[in-house]
């Protein structure tokens, strides 16, 4: 029978591997995908808008130095696949000229609508006398200089080529964008950014500082730092586990089946997740490394109980109940995550459940065979780590923990700002701050997504929104290409002006009294490539608003959606955090019901209490340390339950020797998570801190609340 099950296990594993590897799942790296549902794809598109853009800020005491460095950077950047964001001004100006009959600046159109021709003429005279003013057309072609006025009002305040003076220093800003092929591949992008950073370092000298900002730079530093840290943690953790096992079992061979079971579990977890989801989020892998911590319990449990006088099958018989109950409770905890609406949590659930079941089956089916080959010399079994506390000490520790928990609860604060999950280096923060100041970027940027049946309807909607914005500065396609309806209206306004105001001034210049005919200005990718970034779909565009604080007027317009990316994402993170926290209650109820059915209700309380108290204690400690509670702290609570319930179950069920396994398991997991808590990536360190505290406290609580005799 067992052989049949073994063959079935191998068959199932290979079938899963075949299908999963046939259509391998993509890896998703966008952190927002963890909380933003697919239906909110606009939000993801908005956050991805700047993913391939890199800004270079050159700072110096003297303008000549800045200019010189900018010159060098520009020349070298071309060799590094960076293409500058440029506009063919000549081509665009010619297109505008052809359609000038329908083009009016916003202010002039308003004056003409009010028939305020006097003011229009005054403006024209001012433009003529303006010492630095000039006309883009012959006076005969544009007697009121309306075309020049329109074009002059299109530009931004900062000339992309010029030096900016700010706080007694001189700056040049260079904007670049990576090719799409590079931007879509994190590995390629990082490789290119590395070259640019090298360039930055070589040019930052003699009083000139080159700053780099933008998403690719942050991704590069975050991923390089994480890689170094994860590798270091991996090595230290492995050495720790190796030394612990060597110390206990005196044999290195014991690590081979442990590693085999974990590898098998991790692969099955990956295969199952790859088959169920089109893309696996990189955080699923990060969280699922905790699988190692949970599944190593089963192996340690087996090997601690495997003495010389017992064969493998007997050991399995002895520990079968403990292992099965432990598996059942852990699966129950993670199963609840599967029913959440958050894709990341569902992926973690699938990965962990399938991984754990695999490790469980691996231990039950294959360990008796494997252990025949390993001589453990465990002839004189004795408990090494048998901690016990006197009732007085127990009372004191419990009171201390209760005080920390209760007092900390008063200081618990939450933080759902996704930016708080990642803290860039001081230098990068300084670079971003200086760049925003020099470039005059308003940090309060919001977006309006406008949708229509065709582009003309979209442009008309944009123009309607623009009338509601007051003095708010904005960017939109309609600023550069008015709708045909507006162009027709402008043409009529201009014609009326020409007809009414054939003044001596215009006749003297033999100006025509007819508005020039010409095609209406329309969008095409070939003519206006720089406007492509405003498109989110064929008939879906984007308006960027700066410092706008009256979104309600826009939200009422059908076919438009208003986004304040930072606020919207924070709201989604909050929603996700609250949903996760709410799931904790049914998880505990479900686990209690399960344990009550197996161990009687009063024993179930004893088993579940350490995990519950560990979660509360950890929350209290976070409050006391003024660490703001975030989504990932809450997710970590599920992992605490998954880990720590095993300790209680094994302690409650097990023989004395099992206590060593529980201690070793707790130590290896807690040590790994402690190392994670020291990493620079806030998200990972949050998880590490909570799990270290949770695991240690639940282990201590299991010692205190489940006495030896049980």
């Amino acid at each position: 029978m067992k052989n049949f099950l073994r063959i079935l296990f191998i068959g199932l594993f290979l079938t899963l591997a075949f299908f999963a590897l046939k259509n391998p799942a993509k890896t998703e790296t966008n952190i927002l995908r963890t909380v933003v549902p697919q239906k909110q794809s606009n939000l993801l598109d908005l956050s991805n808008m700047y993913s391939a853009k890199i800004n270079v800020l050159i700072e110096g005491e003297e303008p000549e130095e800045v200019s010189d460095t900018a010159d060098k950077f520009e020349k070298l950047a071309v060799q590094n696949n960076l293409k500058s964001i440029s506009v063919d001004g000549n081509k665009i100006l010619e297109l505008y000229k052809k359609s000038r009959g329908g083009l009016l600046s916003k202010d002039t159109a308003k004056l003409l609508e009010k028939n305020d021709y006097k003011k229009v003429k005054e403006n024209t005279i001012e433009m003529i006398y303006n010492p630095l003013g000039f006309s883009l057309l012959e006076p005969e072609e544009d007697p009121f200089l309306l075309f020049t006025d329109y074009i002059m009002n299109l530009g931004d305040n900062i000339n992309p080529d010029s030096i900016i003076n700010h706080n007694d220093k001189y700056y040049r800003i260079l904007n670049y964008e990576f090719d799409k092929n590079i931007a879509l591949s994190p590995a390629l992008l990082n490789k290119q950014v590395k070259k640019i950073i090298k360039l930055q370092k070589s040019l930052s000298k003699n009083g000139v500082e080159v700053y780099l900002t933008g998403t690719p730079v942050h991704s590069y530093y975050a991923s390089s730092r994480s890689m170094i840290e994860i590798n270091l943690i991996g090595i230290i953790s492995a050495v720790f586990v190796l030394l612990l096992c060597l110390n206990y079992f005196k044999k290195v061979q014991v690590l081979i089946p442990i590693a085999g079971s974990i590898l098998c579990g991790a692969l099955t977890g990956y295969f199952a997740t790859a088959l169920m989801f089109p893309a696996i989020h990189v955080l699923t892998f990060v969280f699922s490394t905790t699988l190692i911590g949970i599944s190593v319990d089963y192996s340690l449990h087996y090997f601690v109980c495997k003495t010389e006088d017992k064969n493998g099958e007997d050991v399995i018989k002895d520990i079968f109940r403990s292992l099965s109950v432990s598996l059942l409770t852990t699966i129950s905890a993670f199963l609840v995550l599967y029913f959440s609406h958050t894709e990341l949590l569902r992926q973690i659930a699938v990965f962990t459940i399938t991984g754990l079941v695999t490790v469980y089956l691996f231990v039950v089916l294959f360990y008796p065979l494997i252990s025949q080959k390993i001589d453990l010399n465990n002839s004189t079994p004795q408990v090494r780590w048998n901690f016990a506390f006197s009732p007085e000490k127990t009372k004191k520790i419990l009171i201390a923990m209760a005080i920390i928990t209760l007092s900390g609860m008063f200081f618990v604060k939450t933080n759902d700002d996704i930016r708080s999950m990642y803290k860039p280096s001081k230098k990068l923060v300084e670079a971003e701050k200086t760049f925003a100041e020099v470039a005059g970027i308003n940090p309060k940027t919001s977006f309006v997504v406008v949708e229509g049946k065709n582009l003309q309807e979209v442009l008309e909607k944009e123009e309607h929104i623009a009338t509601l914005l007051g003095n708010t500065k904005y960017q939109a396609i309609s600023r550069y290409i008015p709708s045909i309806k507006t162009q027709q209206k402008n043409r009529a306004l201009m014609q009326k002006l020409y007809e009414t105001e054939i003044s001596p001034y215009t006749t003297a210049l033999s100006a025509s009294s007819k508005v020039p005919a010409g095609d209406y200005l329309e969008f095409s990718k070939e003519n206006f490539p720089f406007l492509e970034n405003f498109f989110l779909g064929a008939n879906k565009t984007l308006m960027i608003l700066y410092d706008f604080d009256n979104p309600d007027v826009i939200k009422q317009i059908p076919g438009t959606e208003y986004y304040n990316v930072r606020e919207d994402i924070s709201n989604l993170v909050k929603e996700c955090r609250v949903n996760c926290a709410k799931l904790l209650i049914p998880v505990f109820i479900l686990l209690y019901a399960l344990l009550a059915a197996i161990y009687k209700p009063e024993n179930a309380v004893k088993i579940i209490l350490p995990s519950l108290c560990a979660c509360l204690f950890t929350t209290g400690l976070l409050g006391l340390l003024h660490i703001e509670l975030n989504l990932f702290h809450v997710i970590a609570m599920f992992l605490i339950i998954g880990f720590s319930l095993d300790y209680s179950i094994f302690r409650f069920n097990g023989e004395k020797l099992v206590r060593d396994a529980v201690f070793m398991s707790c130590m290896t997991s807690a040590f790994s998570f402690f190392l994670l808590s020291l990493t620079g990536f806030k998200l990972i360190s949050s998880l590490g801190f909570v799990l270290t505290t949770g695991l240690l406290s639940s282990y201590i609580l299991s010692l205190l609340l489940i006495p030896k005799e049980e």
Partner: protein
Amino acid sequence: MKKILLILLVLCFSLNTATAFGSKKNAKEIAEQIPELKNVSCTFTQKKTRGDIELNSGGNFQFIKDKGVVFETMYPIHMITGYESPRTKHINDIILAVAKKDYTYLDKNFDLNFTKLDDRWQLVLNPKKDVIKKHLHSVTIDGSKEDIDRIFIDTVNSGQTEILFECGKN
């Protein structure tokens, strides 16, 4: 002997013409020769000519080294045109680039001719890019020591503008 004198005369003439009529150099070399411009407040007179039409105006002028120019026209109309105005931005950017010695910007957009005779200097900017060439023939800036005395803007569509400055340093 006559031959030597002739050679010397030719040499002297070549050197003089090179200095007097300007030489095409790269922007960096020229930027190094342009004196440091200081903040000044002046009065200005302006003459705009297009064909037979001549428009005269005048008023107060201010040059703020790190920001640009401000013209307060006092006659025949009163108006203030600051460096922030989109209508003056393009020419203001050119003057600022000269003041800041932003030769990357200058080199990208203009061919430069610089001449210097004693304290007097002249910088002529001829546009390189088609988009500017179609609207601007040249900008000439005349100065003495650290002051700008005259700006001459020769445009394609709006004729010529000559601005003369009478300055007293701030």
